[in-house]
């Protein structure tokens, strides 16, 4: 436990020393918020089902942070660790894979939560963002979704041979999801066919789950099931295929 805390703390410091790596978690969502906030403001419109643009977007941006951390940030970080022989050195000490993986989960969740907090703070102060109807449930859903996408990240890091390929595949998965799932753009602007297709993208379920809790519609149990299933399956695969070198 002491090792896990120390490892997480060290990883956190490393993330802050190399801030480019956290651009998509900490900065990019804010840029989107300002960009679309300054174009469309946050006045309620019928087009968005009676919600303002910012209110309509923030749960999606939070899903985007979860997606980018799990599908791009984590697999790249882990693959680089493996490629450079850093995991080899850790393994020569008496540690378990659980320590490395656990600290990665912890640090990525922490940085994600910081990114989300920025987003919400700026949203509230600049655009009068409405806060979640069920704050505690929303928080739980964020953590749960975070676990599911981090476990996908472990699968990518386990199955892909190099950091470059992890990055390529991670981006190929993430960007279509970001545009189609409602995370980066409101689904209201998408043609129906694409919206139907988005049901095959896991990030859509994070958006659905968070929007439901945010706007007071309660838990979306389909989303819960999909994400929990994904967590179990991905964890099983990465436990099976995780490589230190």
């Amino acid at each position, binding site marked *: 436990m*002491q*090792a896990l805390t*120390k*490892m997480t703390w*060290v990883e956190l*410091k*490393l993330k802050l*020393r*190399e801030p480019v790596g956290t651009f998509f978690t900490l900065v990019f969502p804010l840029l989107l918020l300002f960009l679309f906030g300054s174009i469309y403001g946050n006045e309620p419109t019928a087009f968005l089902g009676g919600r303002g643009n910012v209110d309509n977007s923030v749960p999606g941006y939070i899903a985007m942070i979860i997606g980018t951390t799990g599908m791009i940030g984590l697999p790249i970080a882990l693959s680089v*660790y493996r490629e*450079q*022989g*850093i995991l*080899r*050195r850790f*393994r*020569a*000490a*008496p*540690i*378990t894979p659980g*320590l490395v993986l656990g600290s990665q989960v912890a640090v990525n969740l922490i940085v994600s939560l910081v990114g989300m907090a920025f987003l919400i703070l700026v949203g509230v102060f600049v655009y009068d963002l409405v806060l979640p109807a069920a704050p505690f449930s929303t928080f739980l859903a964020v953590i749960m979704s975070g676990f599911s996408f981090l476990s996908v990240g472990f699968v990518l890091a386990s199955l892909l041979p190099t950091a470059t390929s992890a990055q390529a595949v991670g981006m190929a998965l993430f960007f279509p999801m970001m545009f189609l799932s409602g995370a980066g753009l409101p689904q209201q602007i998408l043609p129906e066919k694409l919206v139907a297709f988005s049901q095959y993208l896991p990030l859509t379920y994070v958006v659905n789950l968070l929007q439901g809790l945010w706007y007071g519609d309660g838990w979306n149990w389909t989303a819960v099931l999909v994400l929990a299933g994904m967590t179990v399956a991905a964890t099983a695969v990465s436990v099976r295929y995780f490589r230190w070198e």
Partner: protein
Amino acid sequence: MTNVIEVTNLRKTYGATVAVEDISLTVQKGEIFGIVGPNGAGKTTTVETIMGLRRPDSGTVRVLGLDPQTQAEELRQRLGIQLQEASLPDYLKVWEALDLFASFYHQTVPWEPLLAQWGLGDKRNTRFKNLSGGQKQRLFIALALLNDPEVVFLDELTTGLDPQARRATWEMVRAIRDQGKTVILVTHFMDEAEELADRVAIIDQGRLAALDTPQALIQGLQTGSTVRFTSVNGFDAAVLEEVAGVTAVHQKNGSLQAPQITVQGSGPLLSRVAVKLAEYNIAPLDLRVELADLEEVFLALTGHKIRA
């Protein structure tokens, strides 16, 4: 228990490559055990299998009485490991590396004195990527000693170090042994093994070619001895062929240098050659016996040179 490591009939393949074939050896408590051989001989594979980082295809390994595969964590609490290829995060500071690794062990020695001892006292706040090659190497040694290990593995310790740093490192390896620790020293430098190791295992193409003390290995060569000196112009070295025990005399004439003579033979060659030279009133200042070294042992055992 005096056998710290027991390896029997170890075999390890990577696909079609047989990296290690039928290696058996034991390492005794408190010795510096050298493992030498050319690039690709299987040295790293052998020691990393002993540490439990690689799984053998067959054969058994016991370290401190433990099975490195099934009792890995318990074992690694007691091992110090410096890997041939390893790294740390670029932005990790030296002190953070030590502090972090200390949290992995039940028992550790204070790391500040360790840093000072390995000449990194003023580097504690330096990031890993800003350390020189030699400093990284020393950081890895400090990490390997952090848990006050009973057995220390050093794989290619001095590769990339300048000659002066190599000598200094040798002293420190002796210091580790003098603390009562057992040291496994992997190297492709024969002089390093000869200088440091109490016993040497010579590995070639995955097999154990010889295992003994460096002295015994060299004496076992039975190539006789070689005497060399710088001659003077006008002296016919052929007269040395009459000396008892001499088997061959070679003369090398340089255009600018005085001739260099090499005499091969057996018996008390040096004194006999000196007596003969005295008859001709020649007293070369550099008359000397060339000792065989492990490079020659390797050549004799395997039929090829350790470095191409």
